[in-house]
Protein backbone atom coordinates (compact mmCIF):
# COMPACT_ATOMS: atom_id res chain seq x y z
CA UNK A 1 0.00 0.00 0.00
CA UNK A 2 2.84 2.37 0.84
CA UNK A 3 4.40 2.06 -2.58
CA UNK A 4 0.99 2.41 -4.19
CA UNK A 5 0.43 5.64 -2.30
CA UNK A 6 3.72 7.16 -3.43
CA UNK A 7 3.33 5.95 -7.01
CA UNK A 8 -0.15 7.39 -7.21
CA UNK A 9 0.90 10.74 -5.80
CA UNK A 10 3.80 10.88 -8.23
CA UNK A 11 1.63 10.01 -11.19
CA UNK A 12 -0.70 12.87 -10.33
CA UNK A 13 1.99 15.55 -10.00
CA UNK A 14 1.61 16.86 -13.57
CA UNK A 15 -1.97 17.82 -12.89
CA UNK A 16 -1.45 18.68 -9.20
CA UNK A 17 1.54 20.96 -9.09
CA UNK A 18 0.31 22.28 -5.74
CA UNK A 19 1.37 18.98 -4.14
CA UNK A 20 4.02 18.99 -1.43
CA UNK A 21 4.95 15.83 0.45
CA UNK A 22 6.51 16.51 3.85
CA UNK A 23 8.10 13.60 5.66
CA UNK A 24 9.22 13.33 9.23
CA UNK A 25 12.49 11.73 8.15
CA UNK A 26 10.86 8.44 7.16
CA UNK A 27 10.24 6.71 3.89
CA UNK A 28 13.62 5.11 3.21
CA UNK A 29 13.38 3.04 0.07
CA UNK A 30 10.30 4.78 -1.26
CA UNK A 31 10.86 8.52 -0.79
CA UNK A 32 14.62 8.32 -0.71
CA UNK A 33 17.29 5.72 -1.41
CA UNK A 34 21.04 5.56 -1.09
CA UNK A 35 23.52 6.56 -3.74
CA UNK A 36 22.74 5.66 -7.33
CA UNK A 37 19.26 4.43 -6.54
CA UNK A 38 18.24 7.84 -5.22
CA UNK A 39 17.23 9.26 -8.58
CA UNK A 40 14.54 6.62 -8.86
CA UNK A 41 12.76 7.84 -5.72
CA UNK A 42 10.16 10.55 -5.17
CA UNK A 43 12.32 12.87 -3.12
CA UNK A 44 15.15 13.01 -5.61
CA UNK A 45 12.94 13.15 -8.67
CA UNK A 46 10.67 15.88 -7.37
CA UNK A 47 12.59 18.14 -4.99
CA UNK A 48 10.13 20.96 -5.56
CA UNK A 49 7.40 18.75 -4.16
CA UNK A 50 9.32 17.17 -1.32
CA UNK A 51 10.47 18.35 2.11
CA UNK A 52 12.18 16.33 4.79
CA UNK A 53 11.18 18.15 7.98
CA UNK A 54 13.40 15.99 10.14
CA UNK A 55 12.33 14.08 13.22
CA UNK A 56 9.99 16.84 14.32
CA UNK A 57 6.38 15.87 13.75
CA UNK A 58 4.79 18.84 15.50
CA UNK A 59 6.70 21.21 13.28
CA UNK A 60 6.08 19.06 10.21
CA UNK A 61 2.36 19.43 10.84
CA UNK A 62 2.56 23.17 11.44
CA UNK A 63 4.64 23.61 8.27
CA UNK A 64 2.00 21.68 6.34
CA UNK A 65 -0.74 23.94 7.70
CA UNK A 66 1.24 27.08 6.93
CA UNK A 67 1.90 25.97 3.36
CA UNK A 68 -1.62 24.67 2.77
CA UNK A 69 -3.07 28.03 3.78
CA UNK A 70 -1.02 29.61 1.00
CA UNK A 71 -2.44 27.31 -1.64
CA UNK A 72 -0.42 24.11 -1.41
CA UNK A 73 -1.88 20.66 -0.95
CA UNK A 74 0.33 19.24 1.76
CA UNK A 75 0.74 15.58 2.66
CA UNK A 76 2.51 14.83 5.92
CA UNK A 77 4.13 11.43 6.02
CA UNK A 78 5.44 9.30 8.84
CA UNK A 79 4.79 5.94 10.43
CA UNK A 80 2.56 4.58 13.17
CA UNK A 81 1.49 7.19 15.70
CA UNK A 82 4.15 9.76 14.86
CA UNK A 83 2.23 11.89 12.36
CA UNK A 84 -0.97 11.70 14.41
CA UNK A 85 -0.66 11.43 18.17
CA UNK A 86 2.70 13.19 18.41
CA UNK A 87 1.29 16.18 16.56
CA UNK A 88 -2.31 15.91 17.65
CA UNK A 89 -2.81 19.47 18.78
CA UNK A 90 -1.23 20.84 15.61
CA UNK A 91 -3.65 18.65 13.67
CA UNK A 92 -6.56 19.96 15.72
CA UNK A 93 -5.73 23.67 15.90
CA UNK A 94 -3.59 24.31 12.85
CA UNK A 95 -5.12 21.94 10.32
CA UNK A 96 -8.69 21.18 11.32
CA UNK A 97 -9.76 24.54 12.75
CA UNK A 98 -8.31 26.27 9.70
CA UNK A 99 -9.79 23.65 7.37
CA UNK A 100 -6.32 23.43 5.85
CA UNK A 101 -5.76 21.32 2.77
CA UNK A 102 -3.57 18.70 4.41
CA UNK A 103 -3.71 14.91 4.31
CA UNK A 104 -1.91 13.17 7.15
CA UNK A 105 -0.48 9.87 5.96
CA UNK A 106 0.40 7.23 8.52
CA UNK A 107 2.27 4.25 7.19
CA UNK A 108 1.77 1.12 9.27
CA UNK A 109 -1.79 0.99 10.54
CA UNK A 110 -2.64 -1.41 13.34
CA UNK A 111 -0.03 -4.14 13.78
CA UNK A 112 1.77 -3.48 10.48
CA UNK A 113 4.97 -3.00 12.48
CA UNK A 114 4.08 -5.82 14.82
CA UNK A 115 7.63 -6.80 15.63
CA UNK A 116 8.64 -3.30 16.64
CA UNK A 117 6.60 -3.16 19.80
CA UNK A 118 3.93 -1.08 21.45
CA UNK A 119 5.31 2.30 20.37
CA UNK A 120 4.68 1.29 16.76
CA UNK A 121 1.19 -0.21 17.15
CA UNK A 122 -1.24 2.29 15.67
CA UNK A 123 -4.32 1.06 17.45
CA UNK A 124 -6.06 4.19 18.73
CA UNK A 125 -5.54 6.51 15.76
CA UNK A 126 -8.93 6.06 14.14
CA UNK A 127 -10.77 6.89 17.35
CA UNK A 128 -8.71 9.92 18.15
CA UNK A 129 -8.54 11.42 14.69
CA UNK A 130 -12.20 10.66 14.01
CA UNK A 131 -13.18 12.97 16.86
CA UNK A 132 -11.69 16.00 15.11
CA UNK A 133 -14.22 18.17 13.25
CA UNK A 134 -13.60 18.79 9.52
CA UNK A 135 -11.47 15.66 9.32
CA UNK A 136 -12.03 12.79 6.91
CA UNK A 137 -10.68 9.41 8.05
CA UNK A 138 -9.66 6.79 5.49
CA UNK A 139 -8.27 3.31 6.05
CA UNK A 140 -8.14 1.58 2.64
CA UNK A 141 -8.56 -2.17 2.52
CA UNK A 142 -6.86 -2.73 -0.85
CA UNK A 143 -3.94 -1.31 -2.76
CA UNK A 144 -6.20 -0.36 -5.60
CA UNK A 145 -8.43 1.48 -3.16
CA UNK A 146 -5.37 3.51 -2.21
CA UNK A 147 -5.01 4.52 -5.84
CA UNK A 148 -8.62 5.63 -6.09
CA UNK A 149 -8.74 7.39 -2.74
CA UNK A 150 -5.45 9.25 -3.17
CA UNK A 151 -6.59 10.37 -6.60
CA UNK A 152 -9.79 11.69 -5.09
CA UNK A 153 -7.98 13.28 -2.15
CA UNK A 154 -5.79 15.23 -4.57
CA UNK A 155 -8.89 16.94 -5.85
CA UNK A 156 -10.65 17.23 -2.49
CA UNK A 157 -9.68 20.18 -0.32
CA UNK A 158 -9.62 20.02 3.45
CA UNK A 159 -8.15 17.89 6.21
CA UNK A 160 -7.91 14.13 5.83
CA UNK A 161 -6.22 11.21 7.50
CA UNK A 162 -5.00 8.30 5.38
CA UNK A 163 -4.06 5.15 7.26
CA UNK A 164 -1.83 2.91 5.16
CA UNK A 165 -1.60 -0.77 6.06
CA UNK A 166 1.14 -3.25 5.34
CA UNK A 167 -1.43 -5.93 4.57
CA UNK A 168 -4.33 -5.75 2.17
CA UNK A 169 -7.59 -7.54 1.57
CA UNK A 170 -6.43 -9.37 -1.52
CA UNK A 171 -9.59 -8.99 -3.57
CA UNK A 172 -8.99 -7.74 -7.09
CA UNK A 173 -10.88 -4.82 -8.53
CA UNK A 174 -13.91 -5.93 -10.54
CA UNK A 175 -14.60 -4.35 -13.90
CA UNK A 176 -15.68 -0.77 -13.39
CA UNK A 177 -15.36 -0.95 -9.64
CA UNK A 178 -14.14 2.15 -7.82
CA UNK A 179 -13.49 3.22 -4.27
CA UNK A 180 -15.00 6.60 -3.45
CA UNK A 181 -14.56 8.63 -0.29
CA UNK A 182 -17.55 8.15 1.99
CA UNK A 183 -19.02 5.22 0.07
CA UNK A 184 -18.77 1.70 1.41
CA UNK A 185 -17.87 -0.89 -1.18
CA UNK A 186 -19.76 -4.14 -1.21
CA UNK A 187 -17.17 -6.85 -1.67
CA UNK A 188 -19.68 -9.66 -1.44
CA UNK A 189 -23.41 -9.76 -0.78
CA UNK A 190 -25.06 -11.99 1.77
CA UNK A 191 -28.14 -12.33 3.94
CA UNK A 192 -27.11 -13.73 7.33
CA UNK A 193 -25.12 -10.81 8.56
CA UNK A 194 -22.55 -8.27 7.42
CA UNK A 195 -18.86 -8.12 8.13
CA UNK A 196 -17.76 -4.50 7.90
CA UNK A 197 -14.00 -4.05 7.72
CA UNK A 198 -11.48 -1.27 7.33
CA UNK A 199 -7.83 -1.73 6.45
CA UNK A 200 -6.00 -4.83 5.32
CA UNK A 201 -7.75 -6.95 7.92
CA UNK A 202 -10.50 -7.24 5.32
CA UNK A 203 -8.61 -10.41 4.33
CA UNK A 204 -9.62 -12.02 7.62
CA UNK A 205 -13.26 -11.14 6.96
CA UNK A 206 -12.98 -12.82 3.55
CA UNK A 207 -11.59 -16.02 5.04
CA UNK A 208 -14.21 -15.97 7.78
CA UNK A 209 -17.02 -15.50 5.28
CA UNK A 210 -15.78 -18.46 3.23
CA UNK A 211 -15.76 -20.64 6.30
CA UNK A 212 -19.18 -19.47 7.40
CA UNK A 213 -20.44 -20.21 3.89
CA UNK A 214 -19.33 -23.80 4.37
CA UNK A 215 -21.70 -23.88 7.33
CA UNK A 216 -24.52 -22.47 5.26
CA UNK A 217 -24.24 -18.87 6.35
CA UNK A 218 -24.17 -16.17 3.74
CA UNK A 219 -22.29 -13.09 4.86
CA UNK A 220 -22.27 -9.66 3.25
CA UNK A 221 -18.86 -8.03 3.30
CA UNK A 222 -18.32 -4.30 3.15
CA UNK A 223 -15.05 -2.52 2.68
CA UNK A 224 -15.55 0.54 4.88
CA UNK A 225 -12.39 2.30 3.73
CA UNK A 226 -13.88 5.61 4.86
CA UNK A 227 -14.63 5.71 8.57
CA UNK A 228 -15.56 9.37 8.40
CA UNK A 229 -17.77 10.43 6.82
CA UNK A 230 -19.31 7.02 7.41
CA UNK A 231 -21.59 5.60 4.74
CA UNK A 232 -24.74 5.65 6.87
CA UNK A 233 -26.94 4.14 4.19
CA UNK A 234 -24.66 1.14 3.78
CA UNK A 235 -24.64 0.53 7.53
CA UNK A 236 -28.41 0.81 7.85
CA UNK A 237 -28.95 -1.40 4.82
CA UNK A 238 -26.63 -3.99 6.30
CA UNK A 239 -28.65 -3.95 9.48
CA UNK A 240 -32.04 -4.11 7.82
CA UNK A 241 -31.21 -6.51 5.04
CA UNK A 242 -28.83 -8.94 6.72
CA UNK A 243 -29.79 -8.65 10.36
CA UNK A 244 -26.42 -8.66 12.07
CA UNK A 245 -23.24 -6.60 11.91
CA UNK A 246 -19.72 -7.55 12.92
CA UNK A 247 -17.14 -4.80 12.62
CA UNK A 248 -13.56 -5.83 11.88
CA UNK A 249 -10.70 -3.44 12.51
CA UNK A 250 -7.08 -3.64 13.60
CA UNK A 251 -7.68 -1.07 16.28
CA UNK A 252 -8.98 -0.74 19.79
CA UNK A 253 -12.66 -1.67 19.94
CA UNK A 254 -13.25 1.72 21.54
CA UNK A 255 -13.85 4.63 19.24
CA UNK A 256 -13.02 3.27 15.81
CA UNK A 257 -15.06 1.65 13.06
CA UNK A 258 -17.18 -0.48 15.39
CA UNK A 259 -18.05 2.49 17.52
CA UNK A 260 -18.93 4.58 14.48
CA UNK A 261 -21.28 1.83 13.27
CA UNK A 262 -22.88 1.46 16.69
CA UNK A 263 -23.42 5.20 16.99
CA UNK A 264 -25.01 5.28 13.58
CA UNK A 265 -27.38 2.39 14.24
CA UNK A 266 -28.53 3.77 17.58
CA UNK A 267 -28.88 7.31 16.30
CA UNK A 268 -30.93 6.16 13.33
CA UNK A 269 -33.03 3.76 15.37
CA UNK A 270 -32.03 0.78 13.26
CA UNK A 271 -30.77 -1.83 15.65
CA UNK A 272 -29.20 -4.95 14.18
CA UNK A 273 -30.35 -8.26 15.60
CA UNK A 274 -26.76 -8.97 16.54
CA UNK A 275 -23.69 -6.80 16.77
CA UNK A 276 -20.08 -7.51 17.63
CA UNK A 277 -16.84 -5.58 17.41
CA UNK A 278 -13.70 -7.44 16.38
CA UNK A 279 -10.70 -5.46 17.52
CA UNK A 280 -8.19 -5.00 20.27
CA UNK A 281 -9.92 -5.36 23.64
CA UNK A 282 -8.78 -2.04 25.10
CA UNK A 283 -5.29 -2.95 26.11
CA UNK A 284 -1.69 -2.65 24.99
CA UNK A 285 -0.12 -5.81 23.63
CA UNK A 286 3.07 -6.70 25.43
CA UNK A 287 4.28 -9.28 22.96
CA UNK A 288 5.43 -8.80 19.41
CA UNK A 289 4.99 -10.71 16.20
CA UNK A 290 3.90 -10.31 12.62
CA UNK A 291 0.50 -8.98 11.71
CA UNK A 292 -1.07 -12.43 11.31
CA UNK A 293 0.36 -13.63 14.59
CA UNK A 294 -0.87 -10.66 16.58
CA UNK A 295 -4.32 -10.81 15.01
CA UNK A 296 -4.57 -14.42 16.13
CA UNK A 297 -3.23 -13.69 19.58
CA UNK A 298 -5.66 -10.89 20.20
CA UNK A 299 -8.85 -12.40 18.82
CA UNK A 300 -8.93 -10.44 15.60
CA UNK A 301 -8.43 -13.08 12.90
CA UNK A 302 -10.81 -15.18 10.82
CA UNK A 303 -11.21 -17.69 13.65
CA UNK A 304 -12.39 -14.95 15.94
CA UNK A 305 -14.79 -13.56 13.36
CA UNK A 306 -16.29 -17.00 12.71
CA UNK A 307 -16.63 -17.62 16.42
CA UNK A 308 -18.29 -14.28 16.97
CA UNK A 309 -20.86 -14.80 14.23
CA UNK A 310 -21.68 -18.34 15.36
CA UNK A 311 -21.90 -17.21 18.95
CA UNK A 312 -24.30 -14.45 18.04
CA UNK A 313 -26.39 -16.76 15.93
CA UNK A 314 -26.65 -19.19 18.80
CA UNK A 315 -24.30 -21.89 17.59
CA UNK A 316 -21.62 -22.43 20.16
CA UNK A 317 -20.09 -25.43 18.42
CA UNK A 318 -16.96 -23.37 17.72
CA UNK A 319 -14.87 -21.53 20.23
CA UNK A 320 -16.14 -18.12 21.24
CA UNK A 321 -14.05 -15.00 21.07
CA UNK A 322 -13.82 -15.08 24.84
CA UNK A 323 -12.43 -18.59 24.63
CA UNK A 324 -9.87 -17.53 22.06
CA UNK A 325 -8.69 -14.60 24.10
CA UNK A 326 -8.70 -16.63 27.32
CA UNK A 327 -6.56 -19.25 25.64
CA UNK A 328 -3.76 -16.81 24.87
Amino acid at each position, binding site marked *: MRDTFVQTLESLLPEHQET*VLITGDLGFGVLTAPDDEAQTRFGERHPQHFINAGV*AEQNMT*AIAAGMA*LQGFKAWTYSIGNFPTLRALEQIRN*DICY*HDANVTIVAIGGGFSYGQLGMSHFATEDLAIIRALPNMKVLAPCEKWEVTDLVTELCATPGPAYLRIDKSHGGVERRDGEQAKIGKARMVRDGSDGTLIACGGILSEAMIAADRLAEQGLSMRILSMHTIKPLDVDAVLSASRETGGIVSVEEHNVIGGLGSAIAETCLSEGTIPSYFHRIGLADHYPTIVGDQDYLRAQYGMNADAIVAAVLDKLGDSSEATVADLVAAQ
Partner: protein
Amino acid sequence: MSQISNSSIPNAKGSEQFAYNIRAHALEMISASGASHIGSVYSVADLMAVLFSSVMQLDPENPQWEDRDRFVLSKGHAGASVYVSLAERGFFDHQLLSTYYTNGSTLSGHVSHKNVPGVDISTGSLGHGLGIGAGMAMASRKLEKDWRSFVVLSDGECDEGSIWEAALFAAHNRLGRLTTIIDYNKIQSLAPVSETMALEPFRDKWEAFGWQVRESDGHDHAALKAAMSDLPADGEKPLAIIAHTTKGKGVSFFEERVLWHYRCPRGEELEAARADLAGNYPALSAAFAGGEAHA
Protein backbone atom coordinates in the same frame (compact mmCIF):
# COMPACT_ATOMS: atom_id res chain seq x y z
CA MET B 1 -2.95 45.00 -7.09
CA SER B 2 0.24 46.93 -6.54
CA GLN B 3 1.91 47.06 -3.19
CA ILE B 4 0.66 49.68 -0.82
CA SER B 5 3.33 51.90 0.59
CA ASN B 6 3.03 52.39 4.29
CA SER B 7 3.03 56.16 3.96
CA SER B 8 -0.23 55.95 2.03
CA ILE B 9 -2.15 53.78 4.48
CA PRO B 10 -5.54 55.51 4.61
CA ASN B 11 -5.95 55.30 8.34
CA ALA B 12 -2.32 55.63 9.20
CA LYS B 13 -1.67 57.16 12.55
CA GLY B 14 1.54 57.67 14.32
CA SER B 15 2.67 54.41 15.79
CA GLU B 16 2.83 55.96 19.27
CA GLN B 17 -0.83 56.90 19.07
CA PHE B 18 -1.55 53.47 17.62
CA ALA B 19 0.10 51.86 20.65
CA TYR B 20 -1.77 54.08 23.06
CA ASN B 21 -5.02 53.13 21.40
CA ILE B 22 -4.21 49.44 21.78
CA ARG B 23 -3.72 49.96 25.50
CA ALA B 24 -6.77 52.18 25.99
CA HIS B 25 -9.14 49.95 24.05
CA ALA B 26 -7.73 46.75 25.56
CA LEU B 27 -8.21 48.11 29.07
CA GLU B 28 -11.89 48.68 28.37
CA MET B 29 -12.32 45.37 26.54
CA ILE B 30 -10.64 43.28 29.21
CA SER B 31 -12.18 44.99 32.20
CA ALA B 32 -15.71 45.04 30.79
CA SER B 33 -15.66 41.34 29.94
CA GLY B 34 -13.72 40.02 32.90
CA ALA B 35 -10.91 38.78 30.69
CA SER B 36 -7.26 38.45 31.61
CA HIS B 37 -3.76 38.86 30.14
CA ILE B 38 -3.66 42.64 30.21
CA GLY B 39 -0.01 42.50 31.24
CA SER B 40 0.78 40.58 28.05
CA VAL B 41 -1.23 42.92 25.86
CA TYR B 42 0.52 45.96 27.29
CA SER B 43 3.86 44.24 26.86
CA VAL B 44 3.36 43.81 23.10
CA ALA B 45 1.39 47.00 22.46
CA ASP B 46 4.35 48.92 21.09
CA LEU B 47 5.75 46.21 18.88
CA MET B 48 2.26 45.43 17.57
CA ALA B 49 1.69 49.11 16.85
CA VAL B 50 4.93 49.40 14.89
CA LEU B 51 4.21 46.21 12.95
CA PHE B 52 0.65 47.11 12.05
CA SER B 53 1.12 50.82 11.46
CA SER B 54 4.54 51.01 9.90
CA VAL B 55 5.98 47.71 8.79
CA MET B 56 3.53 45.15 7.40
CA GLN B 57 2.02 45.49 3.96
CA LEU B 58 -1.71 44.99 4.42
CA ASP B 59 -4.89 46.01 2.65
CA PRO B 60 -7.92 46.51 4.90
CA GLU B 61 -10.16 46.66 1.84
CA ASN B 62 -8.95 43.24 0.77
CA PRO B 63 -7.91 41.24 3.84
CA GLN B 64 -6.96 38.25 1.69
CA TRP B 65 -4.77 40.32 -0.63
CA GLU B 66 -2.42 37.77 -2.11
CA ASP B 67 0.74 39.82 -1.60
CA ARG B 68 0.09 40.91 1.97
CA ASP B 69 2.60 40.19 4.64
CA ARG B 70 1.53 37.29 6.82
CA PHE B 71 1.19 37.65 10.55
CA VAL B 72 0.87 35.12 13.37
CA LEU B 73 0.39 36.12 16.98
CA SER B 74 1.76 32.91 18.42
CA LYS B 75 1.18 34.19 21.95
CA GLY B 76 -2.53 34.10 21.29
CA HIS B 77 -3.44 35.27 24.78
CA ALA B 78 -2.54 38.79 23.71
CA GLY B 79 -5.32 38.55 21.13
CA ALA B 80 -6.89 41.83 22.21
CA SER B 81 -3.86 43.61 20.75
CA VAL B 82 -4.55 42.09 17.34
CA TYR B 83 -8.21 43.00 17.36
CA VAL B 84 -7.49 46.63 18.26
CA SER B 85 -4.72 46.79 15.67
CA LEU B 86 -7.07 45.55 12.97
CA ALA B 87 -9.75 48.02 14.00
CA GLU B 88 -7.17 50.81 13.97
CA ARG B 89 -6.14 49.79 10.46
CA GLY B 90 -9.75 49.79 9.33
CA PHE B 91 -10.36 46.08 8.90
CA PHE B 92 -13.55 46.45 10.93
CA ASP B 93 -15.37 48.97 13.06
CA HIS B 94 -14.20 49.74 16.56
CA GLN B 95 -17.68 48.96 17.82
CA LEU B 96 -16.90 45.27 17.36
CA LEU B 97 -14.25 45.56 20.05
CA SER B 98 -16.91 45.98 22.71
CA THR B 99 -18.08 42.43 22.04
CA TYR B 100 -14.67 40.98 22.95
CA TYR B 101 -14.88 37.90 25.20
CA THR B 102 -18.66 38.16 25.53
CA ASN B 103 -21.39 35.65 24.74
CA GLY B 104 -21.73 35.07 21.01
CA SER B 105 -18.75 37.19 20.02
CA THR B 106 -16.31 36.25 17.27
CA LEU B 107 -13.55 37.97 19.25
CA SER B 108 -12.27 35.21 21.50
CA GLY B 109 -9.79 35.76 24.28
CA HIS B 110 -7.16 33.97 22.24
CA VAL B 111 -6.99 35.17 18.71
CA SER B 112 -9.24 33.45 16.16
CA HIS B 113 -9.47 33.89 12.40
CA LYS B 114 -13.07 32.77 12.10
CA ASN B 115 -15.17 35.68 10.86
CA VAL B 116 -12.52 38.21 11.86
CA PRO B 117 -11.18 40.04 8.78
CA GLY B 118 -7.43 40.39 8.85
CA VAL B 119 -6.61 37.43 11.07
CA ASP B 120 -4.90 34.64 9.13
CA ILE B 121 -4.11 32.23 11.93
CA SER B 122 -5.87 31.24 15.12
CA THR B 123 -3.67 30.58 18.09
CA GLY B 124 -4.01 30.09 21.82
CA SER B 125 -2.00 26.99 22.50
CA LEU B 126 1.59 28.11 22.80
CA GLY B 127 4.29 26.82 20.50
CA HIS B 128 2.29 26.58 17.28
CA GLY B 129 2.93 29.88 15.57
CA LEU B 130 6.56 29.70 14.55
CA GLY B 131 6.04 26.44 12.64
CA ILE B 132 3.05 27.87 10.82
CA GLY B 133 5.02 31.01 10.01
CA ALA B 134 7.87 28.87 8.73
CA GLY B 135 5.40 27.01 6.54
CA MET B 136 4.16 30.33 5.18
CA ALA B 137 7.73 31.44 4.51
CA MET B 138 8.46 28.15 2.77
CA ALA B 139 5.34 28.71 0.65
CA SER B 140 6.40 32.23 -0.31
CA ARG B 141 9.78 30.97 -1.44
CA LYS B 142 8.33 28.16 -3.51
CA LEU B 143 5.83 30.60 -5.01
CA GLU B 144 8.61 33.17 -5.58
CA LYS B 145 6.70 35.82 -3.66
CA ASP B 146 8.21 38.73 -1.79
CA TRP B 147 5.87 38.94 1.15
CA ARG B 148 7.28 38.39 4.60
CA SER B 149 6.01 36.23 7.45
CA PHE B 150 6.00 37.76 10.91
CA VAL B 151 5.50 35.72 14.07
CA VAL B 152 5.24 37.22 17.55
CA LEU B 153 6.33 34.86 20.32
CA SER B 154 6.28 35.17 24.07
CA ASP B 155 9.29 34.33 26.14
CA GLY B 156 7.50 31.70 28.21
CA GLU B 157 6.38 30.13 24.95
CA CYS B 158 10.02 29.35 24.20
CA ASP B 159 9.72 26.58 26.80
CA GLU B 160 7.84 24.65 24.11
CA GLY B 161 9.96 22.18 22.19
CA SER B 162 8.00 22.88 19.03
CA ILE B 163 9.46 26.40 18.92
CA TRP B 164 12.92 24.94 18.61
CA GLU B 165 11.80 22.40 16.03
CA ALA B 166 10.60 25.34 13.96
CA ALA B 167 13.76 27.30 14.66
CA LEU B 168 15.87 24.42 13.33
CA PHE B 169 13.64 24.02 10.29
CA ALA B 170 13.63 27.71 9.37
CA ALA B 171 17.40 28.05 9.55
CA HIS B 172 18.06 24.79 7.76
CA ASN B 173 15.74 25.79 4.94
CA ARG B 174 17.16 29.35 4.76
CA LEU B 175 13.82 31.04 5.28
CA GLY B 176 15.17 34.55 5.15
CA ARG B 177 11.73 36.13 4.83
CA LEU B 178 10.62 34.77 8.18
CA THR B 179 10.89 37.19 11.08
CA THR B 180 10.02 36.40 14.65
CA ILE B 181 9.70 39.01 17.34
CA ILE B 182 10.03 37.72 20.86
CA ASP B 183 8.24 39.66 23.55
CA TYR B 184 10.93 39.22 26.16
CA ASN B 185 9.27 40.69 29.24
CA LYS B 186 10.93 38.08 31.44
CA ILE B 187 7.77 37.17 33.33
CA GLN B 188 5.67 34.16 32.51
CA SER B 189 2.43 32.80 33.86
CA LEU B 190 3.39 31.97 37.43
CA ALA B 191 6.81 33.48 38.00
CA PRO B 192 9.77 35.19 36.34
CA VAL B 193 11.25 33.34 33.39
CA SER B 194 14.56 33.05 35.21
CA GLU B 195 12.89 31.14 38.03
CA THR B 196 10.74 28.96 35.78
CA MET B 197 12.87 27.80 32.87
CA ALA B 198 15.83 30.04 32.25
CA LEU B 199 16.26 31.14 28.64
CA GLU B 200 19.60 32.89 28.95
CA PRO B 201 21.84 33.10 27.10
CA PHE B 202 18.85 33.73 24.89
CA ARG B 203 20.53 35.55 22.02
CA ASP B 204 23.17 32.84 21.86
CA LYS B 205 20.51 30.17 21.56
CA TRP B 206 18.92 31.77 18.51
CA GLU B 207 22.29 32.39 16.93
CA ALA B 208 23.34 28.84 17.63
CA PHE B 209 20.17 27.69 15.87
CA GLY B 210 21.28 29.60 12.78
CA TRP B 211 19.26 32.81 13.05
CA GLN B 212 20.23 36.43 12.61
CA VAL B 213 19.48 38.13 15.90
CA ARG B 214 18.73 41.73 16.70
CA GLU B 215 17.89 43.07 20.12
CA SER B 216 15.73 46.09 20.65
CA ASP B 217 14.03 48.07 23.34
CA GLY B 218 10.54 46.70 22.88
CA HIS B 219 8.95 50.04 23.61
CA ASP B 220 11.20 52.24 21.45
CA HIS B 221 9.26 52.66 18.23
CA ALA B 222 12.14 53.93 16.13
CA ALA B 223 14.36 51.07 17.25
CA LEU B 224 11.62 48.52 16.65
CA LYS B 225 10.89 49.87 13.21
CA ALA B 226 14.55 49.78 12.29
CA ALA B 227 14.88 46.22 13.54
CA MET B 228 11.79 45.02 11.69
CA SER B 229 11.95 46.94 8.45
CA ASP B 230 15.22 45.96 6.89
CA LEU B 231 16.09 42.38 6.29
CA PRO B 232 19.63 41.45 7.27
CA ALA B 233 22.34 41.45 4.65
CA ASP B 234 22.50 37.69 4.96
CA GLY B 235 19.13 37.23 3.33
CA GLU B 236 19.06 33.50 3.84
CA LYS B 237 18.95 33.52 7.60
CA PRO B 238 15.64 33.96 9.38
CA LEU B 239 15.55 36.97 11.66
CA ALA B 240 14.81 36.88 15.39
CA ILE B 241 14.21 40.21 17.10
CA ILE B 242 14.49 39.96 20.84
CA ALA B 243 12.31 42.80 22.05
CA HIS B 244 13.15 43.67 25.62
CA THR B 245 9.82 44.64 27.07
CA THR B 246 8.21 45.43 30.38
CA LYS B 247 5.21 43.31 31.22
CA GLY B 248 2.24 45.58 31.80
CA LYS B 249 4.05 48.56 30.23
CA GLY B 250 1.89 51.68 30.36
CA VAL B 251 0.13 51.41 33.70
CA SER B 252 2.54 51.83 36.56
CA PHE B 253 1.02 49.31 38.90
CA PHE B 254 0.73 46.66 36.19
CA GLU B 255 4.40 46.80 35.36
CA GLU B 256 6.67 43.88 36.08
CA ARG B 257 4.15 42.15 38.26
CA VAL B 258 3.18 38.52 37.75
CA LEU B 259 -0.24 39.39 39.18
CA TRP B 260 -1.34 41.17 36.02
CA HIS B 261 -0.84 38.20 33.80
CA TYR B 262 -4.26 37.03 34.92
CA ARG B 263 -5.84 39.73 37.08
CA CYS B 264 -8.63 41.75 35.55
CA PRO B 265 -8.76 45.43 36.53
CA ARG B 266 -12.20 46.35 37.81
CA GLY B 267 -13.79 48.98 40.03
CA GLU B 268 -11.26 51.25 41.67
CA GLU B 269 -8.41 49.43 39.97
CA LEU B 270 -9.95 50.16 36.60
CA GLU B 271 -10.34 53.83 37.44
CA ALA B 272 -6.78 53.98 38.69
CA ALA B 273 -5.52 52.21 35.56
CA ARG B 274 -7.34 54.64 33.25
CA ALA B 275 -5.89 57.60 35.13
CA ASP B 276 -2.42 56.14 35.25
CA LEU B 277 -2.38 55.29 31.55
CA ALA B 278 -3.59 58.77 30.63
CA GLY B 279 -1.07 60.34 32.98
CA ASN B 280 1.80 58.40 31.46
CA TYR B 281 0.88 59.47 27.93
CA PRO B 282 -0.94 62.82 28.31
CA ALA B 283 -0.73 63.96 24.71
CA LEU B 284 -1.76 60.57 23.33
CA SER B 285 -4.56 60.36 25.88
CA ALA B 286 -5.89 63.72 24.78
CA ALA B 287 -5.92 62.57 21.19
CA PHE B 288 -7.59 59.23 21.95
CA ALA B 289 -11.02 59.26 20.42
CA GLY B 290 -12.06 55.66 20.75
CA GLY B 291 -13.79 55.66 24.11
CA GLU B 292 -17.29 55.77 22.68
CA ALA B 293 -16.80 52.28 21.27
CA HIS B 294 -17.12 50.98 24.82
CA ALA B 295 -19.95 53.22 25.96
